[in-house]
């Protein structure tokens, strides 16, 4: 008699265990399989979140763990939300967030639109464009630090080639007005390919028959673009904005490597500030409250965004 692998496995199960399993309902067996994942999720995600919320109401300092923990109510939140330095940090984050998303969406969509047109060397160009995304943010940070060097950096030479003047007359990462743009440019260079890939997936999912029908109705290319291409790629674009928005809200490594938050505090984003409070000043309770504020902001934004995304998909 020939047994299937499942039958062989069933026969190999020890008799006492087989009897126990036979007595369980399907629901119970399903729970047994799912339980380890749920336990892991609770241990890794939910427990630290609840612990952080608890710590945010205390004066706990992790470098003085033996000291009595005092419950101080909402004082940490009050301090954060009346601190003008944190307010400036929020503005720096907003500047970074808005401009990176705008530039990445515009350039990413334009590149995807061009790549989607079948031409010779199409695949090679896609590979070349996607390369920056594959690099480590620390490498990109270092790389752009050299590009922005006023004396030897290529960036200054390219800019002054078009505008005239001396290449060493300005410093992208040393000037308080230019440094916020320096991090925007580096992040845009690195992450535009990601937006491009998502847009490309959207463009390639549009059936040719829709364009053919529009051609039959004598719709112009411009009208086809606005009434077919844009609405059909919109859910993909919104997804890209969601991913980049959440990712850039907690941007850390690239900016630390590039400017270290300076000059002054002009490029100190919230995540950099949070890290300083938590692991340089060791104000654990205070930084927990800071983290909770950021979490609620991102969670709230993501909630309305996912709702909007579902509405667009339903259309």
């Amino acid at each position, binding site marked *: 008699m020939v047994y299937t692998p499942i039958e062989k496995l069933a026969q190999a199960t020890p008799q006492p265990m087989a009897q126990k399993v036979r007595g369980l309902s399907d629901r119970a067996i399903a729970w047994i399989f799912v339980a380890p994942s749920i336990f892991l999720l609770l241990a890794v995600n939910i427990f630290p979140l609840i612990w952080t919320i608890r710590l945010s109401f205390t004066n706990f300092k992790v470098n003085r763990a033996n000291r009595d923990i005092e419950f101080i109510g909402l004082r940490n*939140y009050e301090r954060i*939300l*009346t601190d*003008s330095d944190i*307010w400036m940090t*929020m*503005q720096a*984050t*907003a500047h970074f967030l808005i401009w990176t998303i705008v530039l990445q969406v515009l350039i990413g969509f334009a590149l995807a639109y061009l790549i989607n047109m079948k031409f010779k060397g199409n695949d090679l160009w896609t590979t070349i464009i996607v390369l920056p995304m594959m690099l480590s943010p620390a490498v990109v940070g270092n790389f752009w630090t050299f590009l922005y060097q006023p004396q030897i950096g290529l960036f200054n030479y390219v800019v002054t080639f078009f505008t005239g003047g001396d290449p060493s007359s300005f410093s992208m990462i040393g000037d308080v007005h230019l440094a916020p743009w320096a991090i925007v440019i580096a992040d845009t260079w690195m992450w535009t390919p990601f937006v491009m890939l998502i847009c490309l997936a959207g463009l390639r999912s549009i059936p040719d028959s829709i364009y053919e029908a529009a051609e039959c109705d004598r719709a112009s290319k411009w009208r086809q673009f606005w009434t077919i291409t844009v609405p059909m790629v919109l859910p993909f674009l919104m997804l890209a904005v969601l991913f980049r928005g959440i990712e850039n809200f907690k941007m850390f490594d690239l900016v630390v490597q590039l400017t270290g938050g300076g000059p002054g505090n002009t490029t100190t984003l919230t995540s950099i500030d949070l890290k300083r409070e938590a692991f340089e000043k060791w104000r654990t309770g205070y930084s927990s409250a800071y983290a909770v*504020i950021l979490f*609620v*902001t991102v*969670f*709230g*934004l993501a*909630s*309305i965004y996912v*709702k909007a995304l579902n509405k667009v998909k339903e259309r």
Partner: protein
Amino acid sequence: MRQFFNGLIGLRRGAWEILASTMIAVGVVMLMQPFLLGLFTYSFIVTLSGTVMFIIVSHFPE
């Protein structure tokens, strides 16, 4: 507009979700605006209220 208020009174999901979303959006704008520190101070409570409201009203009937 009238439909929106009727939705609020009748505890309809759509109207309450619009209200919650608006509160979240206003809270985030208050958090990141460069004009008034006072708005920044009250931004968190507005965002938090909107987020909690959003979670609750998403269980309301359509």
